């Protein structure tokens, strides 16, 4: 998988590396700002109130 992605990245090594780092940061940002905030209320361990 990672080898395949690497092979699809364009340019010389430096360009590939930059691309890969940007990709990784993009994925992390997507998780932190979109996926996790969406997922969190659906999990159970954040309840602090009695009902």
């Amino acid at each position, binding site marked *: 998988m990672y080898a395949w992605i690497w092979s699809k990245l364009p340019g010389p090594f430096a360009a590939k590396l930059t691309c890969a780092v940007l990709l990784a940061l993009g994925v992390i940002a997507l998780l932190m700002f979109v996926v996790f905030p969406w997922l969190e209320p659906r999990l159970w361990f*954040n309840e602090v109130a009695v009902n």
Partner: protein
Amino acid sequence: MATREGPDDGRENTGPRPGDHTPWRRPAPGSRGQVPRRPAPPQPARRRYTGPIDNSAEKTQVFAPVGGSAEETQILAPVKAPTATKDRPGPAPLGKGGVAIRTAGEVLITLGLIVLLFMVYELYVTDLFSAGKQSEASDQLDGEWSHDRTLHPELVDGRAFARIHIPTFGVDYNFTIQEGTDDPSLEVGPGHYKGTSLPGEPGNFAVAGHRVGKGAPFNDLDNLSSCDQIVIETSTDFYVYKVLPYDDEVDGWTTGKGADPKCKGVPTLRDPNAESGGAYSETFGRKVVLPSEGTAVNPVPYKPAEVLPKAQQVALLTLTTCHPQFSARQRLIITSVLTQQVPKSQAANYTDLLPKIGEAR
């Protein structure tokens, strides 16, 4: 040549596949050791660079001799051949199964990393988000208070209307209290259970807060002991509550810890005339209950609402959070009783209040 081909035939059965990677080290050098001896003169230059291309032939050649001790020595010697290192990086081709296994492994590692990332998010990133919201809410509350000093603020869901200070956790410990205990409210800071009393009122002013992540306002709630002060600040007053005696302190409170000047004004709330201790017999400074124990925030904790008329109810403050830490299996309940009310005309701000209530600074 004849010696090579002979072994070849015999070896093919054992499988060309395993030969695919390992043979590189052994056979390549081995063959090289032999190659220069015979075919070297005809095509010396080509052999060196295109050697790897001939793999299949060479691999099989080498495998055959492995059995004989004589050949093994041949193999070891040529390892030093200059091209040996160049040959090594040649990619070991994986079959379809190999690729599938590798991909599955990569996916699992990725999922593991995502779970780790989620932990980081829960423990640290939500703190950052909540810190921003909290400071915004705090500024807004200060703004409102500077304009308008109404006794009973209008309660709007998710909007801050009071502030909690706990001197035990440090002079700078303060959070705004929002109306409601739903997620958006609790992301800002502690939230007031809708319908429970307001600060200073008889009954139970109940507040929930996160213990892990999201600013974790109630992270250290289990470090409170009886008689520790909790200050609720509204637009007009400071209400000073003190944590009620814990269950092992209730008996002999007046002669025990209750005699401490720090505990001045802290009753056990037990009715000596009633058999079981009266309406507040279940009320302790700290309790760990199941999440379903909604009665913890009743006007008289753990008792039906009608057990005491409003006029006879004591003004309590109840804080709830999850327990144990990092789990939502139970709830930690801290209950305190109103001991003092200081109008803001006597103490303009929290720093002025602290000496008046016997706290340092």
